[in-house]
């Protein structure tokens, strides 16, 4: 089912054409297929095999043998279900907030500023500008800005949004904040791309037909920007669910906020428990695949993704 959602709709393609060009096309695809086989398929097979490994009898730390120990999956779900739920919860919250922030922004750049192309380009550059600085450095900078003795935290305490002895860093809000901040450009750019093509005559037609601004937005602008919303939310949700930097104890998180990525990191780097790390990765991959497939089907835009 998941695969079907991504499959292109080839029903309409002329059959004779594909047959004639088939071999040459296949030949031209060889580098791409070889690349995928080497850097995607092989690691994936290795990951699946690792996830079924069993600890070696009387073995040392990090020693596992190939086996078919499917209990690994039950074990990691039993042990890490809070982190799994937290990952999807935080990613969902971050995606929704990023959408709320990005939509007006993309509309402003793509539609309102349409007549001023220089300003439009400048605004786009501003959206992309954070990418010029490393992701890690920007997150560390936020950690500094939001540190316990910072004016922002003092102000939040003064207005009782934070109680005495409560701090921002290490709270779930800080992690969601970090995710939103880091992924807003991924939401804004696809939204911009679809809103930029919005035909303003359709909006005029809407008001000619006595629709108020809200109705026009609901019946014209929003449906036309659905492809942008879908790709923006996917580009935000998928990496956010697997993110382990923002939630890490070394950045904006604390033990209370660790996500699935942090559990993979701990299992892989510290505990040397490779089967658990592999099983967690596959669970993350599978869960995202299913969620995304359902989402894409529901939003009825299979052709566009």
């Amino acid at each position: 089912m998941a695969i079907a959602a991504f499959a292109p709709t080839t029903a309409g393609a002329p059959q004779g054409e594909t047959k004639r060009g088939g071999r040459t096309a296949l030949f031209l695809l060889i580098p791409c297929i070889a690349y995928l086989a080497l850097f995607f398929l092989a690691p994936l097979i290795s990951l699946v095999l690792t996830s079924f490994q069993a600890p070696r009898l009387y073995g040392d730390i990090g020693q596992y043998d190939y086996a078919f120990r499917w209990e690994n999956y039950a074990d990691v779900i039993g042990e890490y279900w809070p982190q799994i739920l937290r990952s999807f919860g935080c990613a969902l919250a971050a995606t929704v907030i990023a959408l709320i922030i990005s939509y007006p922004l993309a509309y402003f750049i793509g539609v309102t500023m349409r007549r001023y192309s220089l300003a439009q380009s400048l605004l786009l550059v501003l959206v992309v500008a954070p990418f010029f600085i490393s992701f890690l450095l920007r997150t560390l900078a936020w950690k500094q800005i939001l540190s316990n003795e910072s004016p922002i935290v003092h102000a939040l305490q003064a207005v009782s949004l934070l109680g005495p002895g409560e701090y921002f860093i290490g709270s779930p809000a800080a992690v969601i904040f970090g995710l939103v901040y880091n992924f807003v450009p991924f939401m804004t750019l696809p939204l911009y791309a679809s809103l930029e093509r919005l035909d303003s005559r359709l909006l005029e037609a809407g008001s000619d037909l006595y629709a108020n601004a809200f109705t026009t937005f609901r019946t014209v602008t929003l449906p036309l920007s659905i492809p942008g919303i879908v790709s923006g939310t996917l580009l935000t949700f998928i990496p956010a669910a697997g993110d382990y930097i923002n939630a890490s104890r070394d950045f904006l998180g604390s033990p209370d906020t660790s996500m699935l990525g942090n559990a993979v990191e701990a299992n892989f780097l510290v505990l040397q428990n490779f089967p658990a790390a592999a099983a967690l990765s596959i669970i993350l991959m599978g869960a995202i695949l299913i969620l995304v497939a359902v989402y894409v089907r529901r939003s009825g835009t299979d052709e566009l993704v």
Partner: protein
Amino acid sequence: MSPRRELPTDPMVREIVRQARAWQVGRRGFLAGAGASAAALALAACSTGTSAPPTAAKDNSASDKTLNWANWPAYIDEDDDGNYPTLDAFEQQTGISVNYLVDVDDNNTYYAKVRDQLALGQDIGADTVCLTEWMVARLIRFGYVQDLDEANIPNKKNLTATLADPDFDPGRAKSLPWQGGFGGICWNKEALPDGIRTVSDLWNPELKGRVGVLSEMRDTLGLIMLENGVDITGDWGSDEFQAAMDTFSEQVASGQIAAVKGNSYLEDLASENTLAAICWSGDITVLNAESGDKWEFMVPEAGGTFWNDTFVVPVGSTRKTNAETLMNYYYEPEVAAQVAAWVNYVTPVAGAKEAAEAIDPELAANQLIFPDDDTLSTVHPFRSLTAQEETEFQAEFQKVLLG
């Protein structure tokens, strides 16, 4: 098969298309090939599971006068231009050119990076590396390091007697300490003018959310165990560990401990997110020098931990003699004193204190760099864990860190 199209007239394009056609693979053939390569990959993936210890690489030191040395950040004397004076002197003296790599940021991460090469006996890009004792113990257990040749390290006689015979490497046949340090407590003198004296003082409700501990299990839990009256060097078992673990998880769950970090805990001290912490001795001296004299370090009344980062030569290195020459050089008391004066950690070289007295008497009196017997009696190395203990204890510790 459908009729082939006319070949283009351009001779070069013609040739390319002809070659392309010659290379054409049928769909079946392609699928078979893909299947075979997937199977081969799967087999290749399986083959890394073998466990025979790798054999040491051949030593080419006589003809190859280079050396790669991987070490931790800020762990060797450095001048204002970013040069390493003692290392430069070594290069001039011996003609060995050393590539000093600041590659180690964390024992576990470094190990994860190089373990596959080590298991296959391949070069890991470092001919000698300084890792913490417990990790060195693991490398020795797995047979991932080479035997050191004492004949090449006559200065080994300068090794402090207390470090000469650890349980993981009797007689120091495969390892040699580089620098050591204490795990203890530190606090912000401005925020806490009265200071703290014991690990239990960290659990004071007034410090809630402002306490940091180290993500290095042996230091954090070692200090808590010492506070509980356990001799961490001696023969303790999982009951004693569990008691300390309970204290630790309770303090994390209640929010008393807000940060559990590796090297980056210094940023939290500097930004005052953390006011009191479990920390490493040498760092506080450096922090005070960099960000104003605001912090104080102390070995808690119940005792502190004592660890050493230790030279080893990985199996895949072809420059073992060069590495041994380097170790021998850093075991000269004068050189050791010069390094200790910069890095502020405990040197394992006997006689370095006397050498330091000649340079700077105040430095030689610093108990965190040149501890006397009284200081050394307050700090204790964490005993080596068995493989099973290591797996179990780390799993419990990480469980708390993941909430």
